């Protein structure tokens, strides 16, 4: 889902960058309003966690590789806008240091990963949580899974409207590889939340920004 530079056309790059930069500015404003010295190290540690797990890819069938995202997990712990900001920052560093994704395509990549995983999935989870309170872990698993699969659908969509691939041809291999990634992501998110509930439950009670 890290689209490299040169893979998207001008209209897609400008549209996604505009959307992502406006969301970034709003996120920074929201974070700065309530930023305390105690919250800063947490932001740093979770930013490092996203960077680390996104840097390590694992092979899946169809001859490709996927990686975990961890963005929905961070939004559950720190909140949707903190998650968006950290993910955007991580994408920038990944593009410069690791060569994962591009600089100009950061808008599209942050839409696929940060907006879908961090903001959309957080509010979707909050909505579903009100209706289905009894199956909390299944919901976390399902929304984590969805954050990866939806991101991959949008990634295919952006590439197809830029004329790089045919949506109808590319969507199946893309979905197949990311369904595997989504299942692993779901298990990972549930495990970390369960771990924090047992070992350090107060971390889950931090104000969600």
């Amino acid at each position, binding site marked *: 889902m890290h689209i490299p530079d040169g893979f998207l056309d001008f209209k897609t790059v400008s549209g996604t960058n505009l959307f992502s930069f406006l969301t970034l500015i709003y996120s920074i404003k929201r974070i700065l309003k309530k930023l*305390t010295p105690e919250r800063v*190290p947490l932001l*740093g540690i979770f930013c490092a966690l996203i960077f680390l797990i996104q840097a390590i890819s694992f092979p899946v069938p169809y001859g490709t590789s996927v990686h975990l995202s961890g963005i929905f997990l961070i939004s559950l712990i720190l909140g949707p806008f903190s998650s968006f900001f950290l993910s955007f920052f991580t994408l920038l560093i990944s593009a410069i*240091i690791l060569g994962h994704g591009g600089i100009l395509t950061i808008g599209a990549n942050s839409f696929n990963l940060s907006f879908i995983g961090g903001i959309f999935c957080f509010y979707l989870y909050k909505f579903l949580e009100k209706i289905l309170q009894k199956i909390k872990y299944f919901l976390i698993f399902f929304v984590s899974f969805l954050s990866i699969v939806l991101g991959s659908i949008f990634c295919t969509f952006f590439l197809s409207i830029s004329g790089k691939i045919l949506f109808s041809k590319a969507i199946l291999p893309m979905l197949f590889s990311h369904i595997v990634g989504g299942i692993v992501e779901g298990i990972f998110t549930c495990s970390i939340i369960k771990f924090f509930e047992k070992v350090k439950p107060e971390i889950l009670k931090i104000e969600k920004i």
Partner: protein
Amino acid sequence: MHIDLLLSLIIFSHGVDFEFFENAKGIRFFYEDGTPLSFAEYKIYSPRNEIFSEGELDKLGRVLFLPCEPGKWKIEVDDGMGHGIIKEFEIKDIQNIIFLKTSYPLYLKILTGLGIIFGFTGIVFYIIGRKYAHT
């Protein structure tokens, strides 16, 4: 050249890396008058008779490939206009292949990224801490 390679790394997607190799086997195809078979289609078969490589020759009618086992290899070339050739050839030695790694190892890149993140966190922590100390 090293700077070019470093910059070109940035355009790649996740999990895609590369290394140059030397000692590849090269074959050039040309018509009897010396004109190269530019962009003609080719298929290379391994000694097990499986397709090992396929694609188009370059502008000068050449193809480079790196055999993975010794034995009798076969190449088919077809220019799409009724001209072509099927040629068998023997590969005896595949030992002297040199790979030239061009990028830093992943762990070094990850450490650099983590260093930047924690450094940036430290700066923000210092600024916010000072602001809170004054208020």
